């Protein structure tokens, strides 16, 4: 179990995150949603150990992350960034092999190579395994980054907007892959998401952030309400339900004067 | 638009003023005007008499003092204070720059008749910049024995010191002849390796050092190379196996020779040369014929003294009576009006 207890993060004097509490069990997909600048990415980075929260603790199976070695955290938590810079040539295989870094000392072992091969296969990337990562399309790149996380062989996956920059089909494919990964391997995933409908469709639970605080948390049905959308996003919307999944249809922005101003 | 117009007007006006100002000064100088050839082979018109001089090189300054024209100098090169003992009267004159460049404003303020500098440096734009102030640039090197006499004569003419110039030239000639006389019955030329201040950079044809070596009757092992100051491989020196090695020093490696009281710095340089890897196989090292010569007598106005030392090193028997130190003493006391002191070569002849 991954527990996030009362995490706060400040940049200079500005509060980015305040008293965030989240719990995540294996086999679960949790989406963090909220408008731009509410701290979704910062929260993921704090959990991944990329940034240090000012207050609060993160526990993996009861063990405090701040007392763990970086390399050992990397064996439990995988982080998939929005994009990967590529100034230098690297093959897809090598890009995925990077996921094995926490386990490698001098050279990758046969087991490392096989795990990479397996995860490439599972993502349907085996045909382009020796191609240059930089020459792939956006969707393929996202898949490679996912494959890297798979190869990293962790219990927890953190994904920062895995569907941004992707077209509709690739969005569905990627989300489907994440869904399968979590359900089949019994791991858990936290996704920072922009797209409310995709998160509603694929998540078990959602956390809605507003100005660095948890506004509400629960199953998609409980979160995706007209009132929540209005006060968090400032948008009038209608909610429709298809196959038991709530979908949002935004209609117009709330007029500032009439809006429920909670700030 | 109006602003630009004003600017153009002012510039035009200034330009006219400048041009007319120049013609005025030219007309005002009623004296005799002569045409001379400088070291770069260009003709320069100079109006006489010359009353005020700015000098950018120590070589030229030495010749001016030898011409007894020291009093005309109103501006000197900035480094002069490094060798203040040698220049007791000039060391406090305004410092206007060095061989590479000068402070134009300061020169304009000093308003000399001419600025003396090397033929190559500072660059040619100097003439253009100084022309509006009526300052002529005379480029004379004074660092090559072959052209020294001609340059001294030119400077003598400009400064109206023809008699003094003749004295110096006569002195040079006398001593050159003395050396040539000593070389008359020489048959076997020694092979000489000359090294400047940088390790493994020799003096090839076209350099002052090569010229001196030839005048002193030596065979420069670099005489068939094609550039003046090439880097060469240690192995090539080894294969040429020179009979003698002449190493020169710079002011920066051991201060100025004039204020030097003992030969330790020069000895140290010699020891290092002799200890170079594999050099124990070279004849000059084996026979202890490695000589260090100070920059002051290596090329420049005192190249004749350096040449004298070399001749004595190359042919100790033929030049038994010849005393370069005496020559140096005579030069400093007679032409430079300062007393002889300092260390210039190692090993010393005494």
């Amino acid at each position, binding site marked *: 179990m991954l527990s996030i207890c009362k995490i706060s993060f400040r940049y200079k004097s500005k509060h980015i995150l305040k008293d965030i509490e989240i719990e995540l069990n294996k086999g679960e997909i949790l989406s963090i949603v909220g408008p731009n600048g509410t701290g979704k990415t910062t929260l993921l980075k704090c959990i991944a150990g990329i940034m240090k929260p000012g207050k609060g603790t993160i526990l993996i199976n009861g063990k405090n992350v701040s007392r763990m070695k970086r390399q050992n955290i990397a064996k439990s938590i995988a982080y998939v960034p929005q994009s990967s810079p590529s100034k230098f040539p690297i093959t897809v295989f090598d890009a995925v092999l990077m996921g094995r870094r926490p386990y490698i000392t001098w050279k990758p072992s046969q087991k490392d190579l096989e795990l990479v091969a397996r995860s490439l296969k599972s993502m349907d990337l085996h045909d382009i395994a020796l191609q240059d990562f930089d020459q792939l399309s956006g969707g393929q790149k996202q898949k490679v980054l996912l494959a890297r996380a798979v190869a990293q062989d962790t219990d927890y996956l953190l994904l920062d907007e895995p569907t941004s920059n992707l077209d509709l089909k690739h969005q569905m494919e990627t989300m489907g892959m994440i869904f399968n990964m979590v359900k089949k391997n019994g791991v858990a995933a936290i996704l920072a998401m922009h797209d409310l409908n995709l998160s509603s469709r694929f998540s078990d639970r959602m956390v809605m952030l507003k100005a660095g605080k948890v506004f509400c948390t629960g199953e998609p049905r409980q979160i995706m309400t007209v009132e929540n959308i209005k006060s968090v996003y400032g948008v009038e919307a209608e909610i429709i339900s298809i196959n038991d999944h709530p979908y949002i249809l935004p209609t117009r922005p709330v007029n500032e004067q009439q809006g429920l101003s909670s700030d | 638009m109006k602003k630009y117009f004003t600017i153009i007007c002012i510039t035009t006006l200034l330009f006219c003023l400048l041009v007319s100002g120049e013609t005025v000064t030219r007309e005002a100088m009623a004296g005799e005007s002569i045409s001379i050839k400088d070291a770069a082979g260009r003709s320069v018109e100079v109006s006489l008499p010359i009353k005020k001089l700015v000098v950018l090189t120590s070589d030229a300054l030495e010749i001016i003092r030898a011409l007894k024209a020291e009093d005309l100098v109103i501006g000197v090169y900035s480094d002069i204070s490094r060798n203040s003992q040698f220049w007791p009267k000039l060391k406090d004159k305004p410092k206007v720059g060095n061989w590479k460049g000068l402070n134009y404003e300061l020169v304009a303020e000093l308003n000399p008749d001419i600025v003396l500098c090397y033929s190559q440096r500072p660059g040619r734009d100097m003439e253009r910049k100084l022309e509006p102030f009526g300052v002529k640039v005379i480029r004379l090197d004074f660092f090559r024995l072959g052209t020294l006499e001609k340059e001294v004569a030119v400077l003598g003419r400009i400064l109206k010191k023809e008699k003094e110039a003749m004295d110096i030239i006569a002195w040079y000639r006398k001593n050159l002849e003395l050396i040539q006389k000593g070389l008359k019955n020489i048959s076997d030329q020694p092979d000489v390796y000359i090294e400047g201040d940088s390790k493994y950079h020799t003096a090839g044809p076209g350099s002052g050092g090569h010229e001196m070596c030839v005048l002193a009757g030596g065979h420069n092992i670099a005489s068939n190379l094609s550039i003046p100051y090439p880097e060469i*491989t240690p192995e090539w020196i080894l294969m040429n196996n020179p009979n003698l090695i002449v190493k020169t020093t710079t002011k920066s490696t051991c201060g100025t020779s004039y204020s030097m009281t003992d030969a330790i710095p020069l000895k140290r340089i010699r020891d290092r040369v002799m200890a170079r890897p594999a050099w124990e196989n070279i004849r000059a090292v084996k026979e202890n014929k490695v000589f260090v010569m100070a920059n002051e007598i290596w090329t420049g106005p005192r190249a004749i003294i350096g040449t004298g030392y070399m001749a004595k090193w190359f042919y100790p028997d033929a030049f038994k009576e010849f005393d370069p130190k005496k020559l140096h003493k005579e030069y400093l006391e007679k032409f430079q009006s300062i007393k002889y002191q300092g260390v210039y070569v190692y090993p010393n002849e005494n």
Partner: protein
Amino acid sequence: MKDICEQYKGVTRKKLSFVIFLAALLFGVALIALSQGASSMGFKDSVTAIFQDSGIAHAIIWKLRLPRIIMAVLVGGGLALAGTVFQAILRNPLASPYTLGIASSAGFGAVTAIIFGGSFYSEYLIAGNAFFFALLSSFFILSIAKLKSYTPETMILAGIAIMFFFSSLSSLFQYMGTVEEVHEIVFWFFGSLSKVGWKEIGVASVMILLPTPIILRWSWDFNLLAAGDESAKALGVNVTRIRMLGMVFASLITAAAISFAGVIGFVGLVAPHIARMVIGGDHWFLFPASALVGAVLVLTADTLGRTLWAPQVIPIGIVTAFIGVPFFFYLLMKKTRQYW
């Protein structure tokens, strides 16, 4: 699934054979270099003279040619290795040992030593001073990075500022220098391997070879830096530490190489790229390959420089650029990939 692994291993084997090929090439070039020189020794004589104490030939081989060859290999390999490290930690294909101003501060160190007559006190003062200033500037950049952040941008900007600062100081000192001093400064900047003896090799090899295994040990971390700081951190890399120590080691190597051989530009930039174009970005292979490319480049340049126009030596810095640039362009045109 097995076949992907096999394919990958095939690629790895190709990379390995490229490294072995480079090592063989270096050995070949070294043998040729060993047999070239002013003396009339042929190839066979030169090789036998290594083992037989045959007087002058033995002295030439052991005291002049071998030190020169070894230093060329050390300097070329070191600069290329340092260049690779700088490109990785700054995540910038244009980075080289010169980007962070290490060369210009080393140059300034040499210039001050020359102007103030350093070579009078000790023959090693010029090299020592160059080394001191090279390290001084890299520690300055590290402290700036510590105060602000260890990002490539901060470090590159600080480095460029340092570079301009020391270059202008050098220019100032050159401006004040006498003819002879300026000559010597210019010669120093040209670079030269003529002055190298076993003592210099001893010092340089300690500084160049000691950090090398540590850098190799971290090749995985350097690989991950290319994936971005965040990914690297999330994969367990201590990004700050690797960037800091990487810079310290690469500066040490650069300083050692430059202070003994002068500013041999370009190797540190071009050798990593040549290696990368052939075998890709895996630092486990890239480090040895680029070091070998650098060593071959500098050794070839020095050998050509001292034989083409013998006995005059064409300065090593100039020849290195002359043979490196066309080869680099050839690879650049041949490869389809867009680098930047």
